[in-house]
């Protein structure tokens, strides 16, 4: 077993070599690679989760459906699929803050958040967020939670895919769903930050 850590150039050459064989064997094509990448670059991302959150903030009946069965509720928007076949939404309140992780690999709800950011997949986050969640949130994400709020860390060890319904920011009563969705960040649905305050939203 080699302990050589490859450079970017070496990895690129290795992947190209592997891809060339897999193309010849009928397993891959560059067109299929490009299409799959394009889907996760441009079509499936946190803007979809934000739409769902905005609806949940605006419509209490929808929120109940979302918390009862997230995959089914997201299907009302045509949202779902790979790595979100069985989703569970966990709700932040004045007393409870939720945050998600996958300590064993990189499980993440792709249909609503897209592909995970690199820090989510790297050893520092995966090792520490279960061990010292308050310290990680405070020191690495600038998010300071009082001890009175219970921190719930969801380790995505099975094929269930957890994600967070952040608290609706104050003073957003008159906002439309698209304006509410603009306040919902990827990080707020992972649980490493709050939704944005309305002053940072585009004017409706």
């Amino acid at each position, binding site marked *: 077993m080699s302990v050589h850590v490859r450079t970017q150039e070496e990895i690129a050459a290795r992947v190209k070599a592997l891809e060339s064989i897999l193309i010849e064997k009928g397993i891959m*094509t560059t067109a299929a690679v490009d299409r799959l990448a394009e889907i996760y670059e441009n079509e499936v991302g946190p803007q979809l989760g934000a739409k769902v959150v905005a609806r949940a903030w605006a419509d209490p009946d929808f929120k109940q459906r979302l918390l009862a069965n997230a995959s089914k509720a997201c299907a009302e928007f045509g949202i779902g699929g790979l790595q979100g076949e069985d989703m569970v939404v966990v709700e932040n309140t004045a007393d409870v803050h939720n945050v998600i992780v996958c300590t064993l*690999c990189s499980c993440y709800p792709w249909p609503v958040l897209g592909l995970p950011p690199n820090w989510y997949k790297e050893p520092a986050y995966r090792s520490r967020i279960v061990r010292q969640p308050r310290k990680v949130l405070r020191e690495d994400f600038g998010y300071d939670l009082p001890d009175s709020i219970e*921190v719930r860390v969801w380790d995505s*060890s099975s094929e269930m895919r957890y994600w967070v319904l952040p608290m609706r920011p104050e003073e957003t009563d008159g906002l439309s769903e698209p304006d509410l969705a603009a306040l919902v960040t990827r990080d707020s649905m992972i649980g490493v930050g709050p939704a944005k305050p309305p002053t940072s939203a585009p004017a409706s």
Partner: protein
Amino acid sequence: MNGVHDLGGTDGLGRVEVPGKEPVFRADWEKAAFAMFSMCSRAGFFGVDEFRYGIEQMHPAVYLLSPYYEHWVHTVEHYGEKNGVLDLDELDRRTQYFLEHPDAPLPHRDDPDLVAFVEGLVPAGAPAGRESDRPPRFKVGDKVTVQADSPLGHTRRARYIRGHTGEVVLAHGTFIYPDSAGNGGGDAPEHVYTVKFTGQELWGPEADPNEVVYFDVWEPYIDPAVTAGAPA
């Protein structure tokens, strides 16, 4: 296996580095490596549990230091060699060629079915739920203890929950069992539960205040909790 991938509760790995903005794919090779998961699954290389086990068998130092999608390349190579699709000497020769000729083109092949496969896979997914008529052994509210032994093959029973006691808070139904499927066995469906552990239970007096961890377990991972010397 007690591998380095099992990171929960490991100390000394530094702070989380959070860049302000980064692209979905940082290099073209990441797109190809990402796509290999779906396309090699279609070709029968692995299911998702075997895919993970291939990653877990990387050298631990390389695992910790390599960019994330390189893990996916390792598991593709692992199963490609195992199933006879890949000749690693040939792969090494081609790697050398592309190192010396980084702009050399890839072979061209058209396969509209493969593009259609991608278009269909993303919205449909690949559910891991499996029917089983076995009744669940546990219910919400039960106190359970995670088995403490160390299996050698693939498992999702992370080290930091082994031997610890928590409460079943969700019951999800029956799913593919990774300790079977990840080790080359069948789906062998088992009930999945979410178990809630307190920070104190997992980490002792130095736990963060007011912290709980939720961890999903398959039924064979847990036993009824033993409290005060008697079965609960």
